């Protein structure tokens, strides 16, 4: 079989690679990484730049010193909970209903609706009423669930007034009186009538109901007279939740850490200073003076008798409801929250970064830049270096002097600082990174190739070609070049590793192309955010990937070193 000389020369290095076990391992690893780069969009489960949000039926339990995160109740947010006589019930988004008896496990209950369920209440008979979006009203007892037809409205809260009537309030200032036996609804005129959203309702000690809503709105409904009247509780903030203990102690919570408290049934409302200004979604107060409030970003405040204190929690999930049964305190959530700095999980294999972006996807995508710069840079370096070496070695004389003096000058330029200056002066872009790498690395290749060419040009086959009348170009590229090709392969392999490290270094210093994801860039983000000291999952994988890639390239190049040093070959 006769191959063209170039191909025949290229076969040698390949054969060497296949013989070396480490080189074969290197090639396999590199193959995997190349595949990773090629199929990055298919391999990554998330968009690497997308800030990931998660919705979760989170349950936090008050432990001895911290609110602990318990196993979640499904992937949907929990909105409200109620408890009566040993029976508890939780409702949430998309028709989620969970029940449990005294200390049992939570069990999911099927209801005939997909609407978001916003509020629940239990009466003395153990009968549950649930309200939600799209005018959803559900009545439930031991035998099953019954849907009450109602006009479409976003219903926010519900309370049993007695065994058969319930008061429902909604987002468009709806105040409805439900007769559970007849299943009909009577609308009650609001004293405001301007469509203010009403968020919560609670039963006061005297049997009237107190409704709170946006912009500090408070309405008292008296079932005896059937009328609603404005009440002042001294806040103009949006009020999200109200809880009144059987003895008349009451707590109203709202936006920006609003906490309004009443110590006795006929006492005055006082606004408490809050230790945090995030929105509070739920509050609970007992007649014994215990009180707790929960809100966004996992904020939980407890009343210690004199002031509100922030309770330590295990998570930053948004909390929407509280369920207090004796000493068993639960906080429930959670809306969509960003999974910032979450450790590796089934959803995020390598965890997430400070913005909640998926790190596995970032690492997978990072391989693209690394390999692109690695191979493109190395190709450019070898192209420049080989040609300079060939021309200098072949022509000698003045050409050689000029070219080799240039190489000498290049040796005086420290690599890292020069690349820094180049990138900083000419806006960071992929082209500049590749140029910075290649402009300074071709010097070694040129020297090596030249010394090889110097000995080759004196060989008989070159002289023969010259006598036969071959042109200089023909001799250089058809006769000499195939003989230095193994050396070129060796340099190519070495410089791929050098380029990958150089790119990672520049990206790590924040000089990589903006908007692109690279391994060095991930480490740059980690260092810049300051979170790398705790989030080990953030800075471990990119470094390991860089190391593995460069190591596999080194293994391949080691097998080729035999080419440059035939004495090694003789001994094998």
């Amino acid at each position, binding site marked *: 079989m006769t191959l063209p000389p170039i191909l025949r020369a290229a076969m040698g290095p390949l054969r060497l690679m296949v013989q070396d076990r480490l080189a074969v391992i290197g090639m396999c690893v590199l193959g995997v990484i190349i595949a990773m780069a090629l199929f990055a969009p298919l391999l990554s489960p998330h968009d690497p730049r997308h800030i990931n949000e998660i919705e979760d039926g989170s349950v936090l339990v008050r432990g001895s010193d911290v609110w602990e995160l318990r196993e979640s109740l499904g992937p949907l947010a929990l909105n409200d909970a109620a408890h009566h006589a040993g029976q508890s019930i939780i409702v949430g988004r998309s028709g989620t209903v969970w029940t449990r008896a005294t200390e049992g496990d939570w069990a999911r209950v099927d209801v005939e609706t997909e609407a978001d369920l916003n509020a629940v209440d239990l009466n003395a008979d153990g009968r549950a009423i649930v309200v939600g979006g799209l005018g959803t009203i559900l009545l439930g007892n031991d035998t099953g669930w019954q849907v009450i037809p109602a006009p479409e409205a976003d219903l926010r809260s519900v309370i049993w007034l007695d065994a058969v009537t319930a008061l429902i309030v909604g987002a468009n200032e709806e105040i409805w009186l439900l007769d559970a036996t007849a299943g009909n609804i009577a609308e009650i005129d609001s004293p405001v009538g301007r469509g203010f959203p009403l968020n919560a309702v609670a039963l006061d000690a005297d049997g009237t109901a107190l409704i709170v809503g946006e912009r500090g709105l408070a309405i008292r409904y008296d079932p005896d007279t059937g009328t609603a009247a404005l009440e002042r509780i001294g806040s103009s903030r949006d009020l999200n939740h109200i809880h009144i203990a059987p003895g008349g102690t009451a707590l109203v919570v709202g936006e920006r850490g609003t906490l309004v408290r009443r110590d006795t049934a006929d006492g005055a409302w006082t606004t408490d200073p809050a230790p945090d200004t995030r929105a509070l979604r739920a509050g609970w107060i007992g007649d014994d003076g215990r009180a707790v409030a929960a809100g966004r970003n996992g904020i939980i405040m407890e009343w210690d008798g004199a002031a509100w204190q922030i309770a330590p929690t295990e998570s930053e999930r948004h909390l929407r409801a509280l369920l207090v049964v004796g000493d068993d305190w639960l906080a429930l959530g959670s809306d969509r929250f960003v999974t910032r700095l979450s450790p590796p999980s089934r959803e995020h294999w390598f965890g997430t970064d400070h913005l909640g972006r998926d790190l596995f996807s970032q690492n997978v995508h990072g391989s693209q830049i690394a390999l692109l710069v690695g191979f493109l840079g190395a190709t450019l370096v070898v192209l420049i270096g080989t040609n300079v070496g060939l021309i200098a070695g072949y022509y000698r004389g003045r050409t050689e002097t000029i070219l080799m*003096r240039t190489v*000498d*000058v290049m*040796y*005086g*330029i*420290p*690599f*890292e*600082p*020069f690349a*820094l*200056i*180049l990138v*900083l*002066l*000419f806006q960071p872009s992929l082209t500049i990174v590749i140029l910075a790498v290649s402009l300074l690395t071709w010097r070694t290749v040129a020297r090596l190739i030249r010394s090889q060419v110097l000995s080759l040009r004196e060989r008989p086959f070159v002289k023969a070609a010259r006598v036969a009348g071959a042109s200089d170009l023909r001799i250089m590229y058809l006769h000499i070049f195939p003989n230095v090709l193994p050396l070129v392969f060796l340099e190519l392999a070495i410089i791929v*590793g050098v380029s990958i*490290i150089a790119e*990672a*270094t520049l990206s*790590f*210093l924040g000089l990589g192309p903006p908007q692109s994801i690279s391994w*060095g860039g991930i*480490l740059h983000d*980690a*260092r810049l955010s300051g979170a*790398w*000291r705790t989030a*080990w999952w953030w*800075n*471990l994988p*990119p*470094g390991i990937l*860089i*190391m*593995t890639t*460069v*190591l596999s390239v*080194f*293994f391949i190049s*080691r097998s080729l070193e035999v080419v440059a*040093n035939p*004495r*090694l070959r003789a*001994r094998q």
Partner: protein
Amino acid sequence: MTRRTYLIKRVLQAVFSLWIIATILFFLFRMGLPDPTSVLITEGLNAEQRAAVRAQFGLEDPLWRQYVLFLTNAVQGEFGTSFSYRAPVSEIVWERLGNTMVLMLAAIVLAYAIGVPLGAWLSWRRGSSTDTVGIFVGLMFRSAPMFWTGMIAILIFGVGLLMFPTSGMRTLPYDADGFLDKIFTLDFLWHAILPVLIVALYYLGSPMLIMRNTMLEVYGEDFIEMARAKGLPERDILYKHAARNALLPVVTQLAVTIGLAAGGQVVVEVVFSWPGLGREILNAVRTSDFPLAQASFLIMAAFVISLNLLVDILYTTLDPRVSFR
């Protein structure tokens, strides 16, 4: 060519290289900037300083006049005033260069002190699993980016075990009377251990592998056979006969490494907040402190070139076989 003409030629060549680099630097900075004057004006200098800087750089002059002025000043070691430090650039640069060299030289010495005997030992155990592990570990540290190993080291020993400080050269505040006073203290040593170790681990691979490979070559030589035939113990053959003859390529590599040491490892200085020259260049270019950046780079290049020159000169005395081409 006699040795004297070779040396003269070599020195001239170094000066030429330096001139070319200064020229590249001069035009690169003027090309990369939209307008050098705008950068100067926006800096918080008062009118007098501004006028002084303008005069110093001769910014109204034509480009060639500026170039000549820049070169003549540079030859006299005059690099102007740093914008951000309000101090002569040369003072800052020399101090930072010292800090970089302390770190790099300590690391290189450590790497060679460990790497050379280790390489000799690996060659003795060639083919064994020790050999494979040694090669693998050496190449691994060579492949891992230094900024990453530095971060991991800080995480483990600085943040986790609280054994070493994670940044700087000395515990602040401190004042030292001079450079030597600054570095000959336990506090300095304590700060230097992690960065020196990280750089040393990176450099360790190359003396180790070169030593191992040349040792393997030397083993094939006749005089080793001769020593074996004489019945010398294997250990003596290894360290007295083979190792001595295998050292030259290692020394060559050492020279190249030291030559590039002034270039420093910018990332290590950044990760460990080491006040070295590389980090200074990065800051200077970021804060548009061009006199400082320009001078830092030029002095760094001068250092690299003169070290290379020194190595070449030393070589002519060390190895008589070197031909003066």
